[in-house]
C-alpha cells in the first residue's frame, strides 16, 4: 500500500541502530524487573536491598559477620544477634532458588533446544546432539553452583551470628559464585554459537543481535566468574552491565526463536529476507 504521508524511509544506519536501541532498552527493562523481583519483593519485609549487596561485597569472614550482625540488629524488636533474624535473607535466596534459577535455566534450555531444532540438528535419527548435551552440562553445572552458593550464603550468615564464621567458608562462597558465572557464561556462549549456525535461515537481525550479545556476554560472565569480585563501583557497573547484556541476549534470542518457530510458518521463514 502506498503511504505518501510517511515520507522517505530513514537512512540505513538508523534502520540498523533503531532495533538495537529498542532491544537494549527492552533488555534493560527486563534486567531492572529481574532485580526488582529479587530485591524489591523482600524490601517490604524490612530487608533493605543495600544490605544484600553488602553481604555479597564482604569477602572476608569478619566483614561478612559484621554486616550480618549489623543487619540483624536493624530488625525491630530483635533482642540479640543470637536470635536469628535473617529470615528476609532466607526468603530472598529462596525466591532466587525456586523461581529465578529454574526460570533462567528453563529459558536457556528452551533457546538452545529451539535453535538446534531450527538448524535441523538434534533429530532422533542423527543420534545424540553432543553440542547441545554439552550446553546442558554447562548449564546444569552453573545451576548447581548457584544453588550451592545460595545455601552457603545462608549458612555463612548463621555462622556469622554465632561468631563461628570461618574464612574458608567465605572462600567456598566466592568460589561457588565465580564458578557459577563461569559455567553460565560458557553455556551462554554455546547458545550464541548455536544461533550463528549457518543452517538457520537468515531472517531479521534479531537472531544476529541475540547471538552476538550472547557471545559477548559469555566472556564477560566468565571474567566475572574467574576474576571479579563485587565490592567496588566498577564491579557494580559491570554487574549491572551483565544483567543488561543477559537481558538483551535472552530477549533477542527469545524473539528470534518465537519468530522462527511458532509465529511464522516454516515456508515463510525459508523465503524471508
Amino acid at each position: 500500500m502506498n503511504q505518501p504521508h510517511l515520507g522517505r524511509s530513514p537512512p540505513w544506519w538508523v534502520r540498523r541502530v533503531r532495533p538495537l536501541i529498542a532491544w537494549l532498552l527492552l533488555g534493560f527493562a527486563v534486567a531492572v524487573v529481574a532485580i526488582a523481583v529479587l530485591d524489591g519483593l523482600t524490601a517490604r519485609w524490612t530487608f533493605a536491598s543495600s544490605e544484600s549487596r553488602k553481604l555479597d561485597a564482604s569477602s572476608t569472614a569478619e566483614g561478612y559477620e559484621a554486616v550480618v550482625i549489623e543487619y540483624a540488629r536493624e530488625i525491630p524488636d530483635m533482642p540479640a544477634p543470637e536470635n536469628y533474624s535473617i529470615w528476609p535473607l532466607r526468603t530472598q535466596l529462596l525466591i532466587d532458588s525456586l523461581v529465578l534459577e529454574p526460570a533462567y535455566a528453563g529459558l536457556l534450555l528452551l533457546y538452545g533446544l529451539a535453535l538446534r531444532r531450527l538448524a535441523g540438528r538434534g533429530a532422533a535419527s542423527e543420534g545424540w546432539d553432543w553440542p547441545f548435551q554439552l550446553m546442558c552440562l554447562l548449564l546444569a553445572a552453573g545451576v548447581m553452583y548457584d544453588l550451592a552458593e545460595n545455601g552457603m550464603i545462608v549458612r555463612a550468615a548463621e555462622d556469622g551470628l554465632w561468631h563461628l564464621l570461618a574464612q574458608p567458608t567465605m572462600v567456598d562462597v566466592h568460589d561457588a559464585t565465580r564458578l557459577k558465572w563461569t559455567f553460565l557464561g560458557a553455556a551462554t556462549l554455546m547458545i550464541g554459537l548455536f544461533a550463528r549456525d549457518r543452517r538457520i535461515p537468515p531472517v531479521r537481525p534479531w537472531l544476529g543481535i541475540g547471538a552476538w550479545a550472547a557471545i559477548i556476554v559469555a566472556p564477560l560472565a566468565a571474567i566475572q566468574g574467574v576474576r571479579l569480585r563485587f565490592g567496588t563501583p566498577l564491579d557494580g557497573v559491570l554487574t549491572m552491565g551483565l544483567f543488561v547484556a543477559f537481558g538483551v541476549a535472552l530477549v533477542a534470542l527469545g524473539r528470534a526463536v518465537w519468530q522462527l518457530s511458532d509465529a511464522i510458518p516454516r515456508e515463510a521463514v525459508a523465503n524471508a529476507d
Partner: protein
Amino acid sequence: MRLLHGLANFIRGSVRCMFPLATLGVWTGVLLVPQGTDVLRAALERLSRLHSVGDLLYLGVASMLLGLSLWYSMRWLIDAELPALRFTQPLSTFWRTWVPRIAGAFAPLLVGVVIAASGSFSQVEGLYRYGTAGAFAVLSALLLVFFWRRRHFVPSLRDADGRDQDGNPGVLALDQRLPPGTTGLIFWSILLSAMLGGLFVQFPLTVPRVVGAAAIAALALASINLFGSFVLTWLPMRRSMPPLGPWLVLWAILISPFTDNHGGRVLADVKTSPDAPQTIAEAYDKWSAGLPQGDTAPVYIVAAEGGGIRAAYWTAAVLQALDHTEGFRNHVFAISGVSGGSVGAAMWAASVRDAMCGGASGTRRPQATDMLAADLVSPALAGLFFYDFAQRFIPIPVDRLDRSQGLEEGMERAAYRLPGRPLERSISEFYLGCAHLPELLLNSTVVETGQRAVLSRLGSSEFANAFPWAATGETLSLSRQALSQFTHHSARFPVISPAGSIRALPPGEPDLWDWLVQRWWPPVRLRLADGGYFDNSGVQTALDVLEVIGPAAERSKRTVKLIVITSDPQVAAQCGTAAGDATCPTPQKPDPWHAPSVLHWLHETVPIVEALYLVRDSRLHITAAQAIRRFDQHVIMLPLPTGVKAPLGWALSEQVREDILCNTPGVLKARFPTAASSPRPSYCPNP
C-alpha cells in the same frame, strides 16, 4: 503349581530388583535409627524456629528423586526380558505396574510417617510437625499420580514404551533396544550424580551442610540404585550374564590394599619447645609449680566417656558449667577423653586456651557448646556415600577423597575464630606458651595390637600396656598432625569414620620412583580405631595418671579427684538422684541378668558380636570399681540425665542441645554448687 510358579517368580523378581530392594531397606534404616530421626527433627526445628525451609525442600526433592529412581529401575528390571533370569510365566499387571509404583511412592511417604509417628517429634509444634508430615504424604501421592497417569499428562510417552493389546504395559523384548529417552535419562542421572559427588569433593563441608544429612542419604541411594540396577544388573542380565554387583564387591576387596586413602594431612612445619615435658611426672611438676603458693584446692583428673556427639556435647556442657567455679580450670591437670568425650574435651580446652594463656579479655569467643552445635554428620555422610565410596573401586589412593576431612575440618572451622586457631595446630604447638593448660590425653585403639594408644604431647611409657610410640623407630605422620586429627583418631565412630592410617614419613626428599611407589602404596605402619573399643570410659588412663602423680600430690597435701563425665544411660539410671554424689558410682552388676529372647536371631554370629560389645560395657564397671578403690572415694560421676534423649552420631538437634544445657546444673549441684547456680539459659523451664 500356580503357587510354586508365583513363588519362583517372586524369587526371580527379588534377585532382579536386588538394588532397589536393598535401597529401600537402607533408606528405612537411615530414617529409623536415632541419628536419622534426630536429623529429621533438626530439619523440622529449622522450619519451626528459624523459618528455614531449605533443609526440608532438599529432603523433599531428594526423597522424590529416590522415589523416581526406585520406580524407574524396578519397572525396567521387571518389564524387560532378561534371559539370565526369565520369569516362569508372565507376571500379572499388578506386579509389573503397581509394585514399582508403590516402592517409588514409599520413599517420601516414609519420611512423613516417621515425622508423624515418632515420639522424638513430640516437642515440635503440631502445625509444623503434622504439616510437614502431610506435605510428604502429598508428595508421595503426587508421585503415585504421576506414575499412574503420566501418559495422560505427557502425550509423547503414550508411544514411547508401548502397550500390549489389553492396554497393559508392554514387555521389552530381547530384540528391542531401550528407548533413546530412557538411555538419555539413565546417562544424565548418572552424570548428575557424579557432578554432585564432585561438588561434595570441592566443598566437603559447606555443600553437605546446605543439602542436609537425610537428603544426602536419599540422593546417594538414588544414584547408587540407578547405577546398580541398570549398569550392574540390567545390562549384564540382558546379555545372559549374572549381575555384576558381587563381582564389583570382589574387585573392591582385591584392590583394597591399594585404596587406603585415610592417611590424613601432614602439617608442613611443627614447632616444639625444648623445655616441654616428656612424661606425666615432668608435666605434673611443671603444672603444679604454676599453682599459687598455699593453694591446697583439689587437683582434678577428668575422664570423658565416649558416645558420639551426645558425649561430646555433654562433656563440653559439664566442663563449661564447672568453669563457673572459681579456679576450676587451673586445677584440672589432665583430661582423658575417649571418642565423643575427646571431642568435647578438646573443644573445651581450645575455647579456654586463650584466656588461660594471657589472651586479651573482653572479646566474645565461641564457647565449646556453640562450636559443637555445628552439623558434623552431613559432611561425614557425604564422604561415606559419595567420594570415599567411589575410592573403594579406584586402585590408587586419593587423599582428597578421605571422608575424615569432613569431621576434622568441621571441627577446625567451628574453632576458627578462636585466637591462634588451636585445632589446626599440632598438639605440641597447642601448649606453646600455655604450660598450665590441662593435658589432653586422647585415647584411641591400635588395630594391629589391640592396645590403647594415648595421643598426647607426652610419652606413653607411663601408661600400662599402652602402645609404645617410640618403639616404632620411625618418624610417623602422627607427629605432624593437627589437634583436630588427634581428636578424630580418638573419635572414629564406626562406619561414619574409617580407621586412620598412620604412615611412616620418609627421612628425606624421596626420588621420583620412591614418590610414585609411596603414592600408590603408602607405607602404613599402624591404624587407629575409636578409643571406645579398648575402654570407653577413659578411666583407665586417668588411673595411670593418678599412679604417677599420686605420691607428688600427697607430698603437697593435695587431694586428687576424678571426675567421670558419662553419657551412658545405664550409669544415669543407676545413679538416679545421686548423680554427682560419691554414692553414685557404687559398682553394681552391669545389667540385670535376662534370658535370651525366644527368637534369638543368627545364633552363630550375633552372640559373638553381642558379647564383644557387652564385654566393653562390662569393663566400664570394673574400671569404675578400680577407680573408687584407688581414688579413695574421690570419684565424682556426672551422668547425662536419663530424661535427655540424645542420639549417638555427629549432629544434635537444637531441642536436645537445650535439654542438655538446662539439665547440667541439676547434675552438678551436689558437688559443685557454685557451678550449678550459674545463670541458666532463658529458654530453660523453671527447675
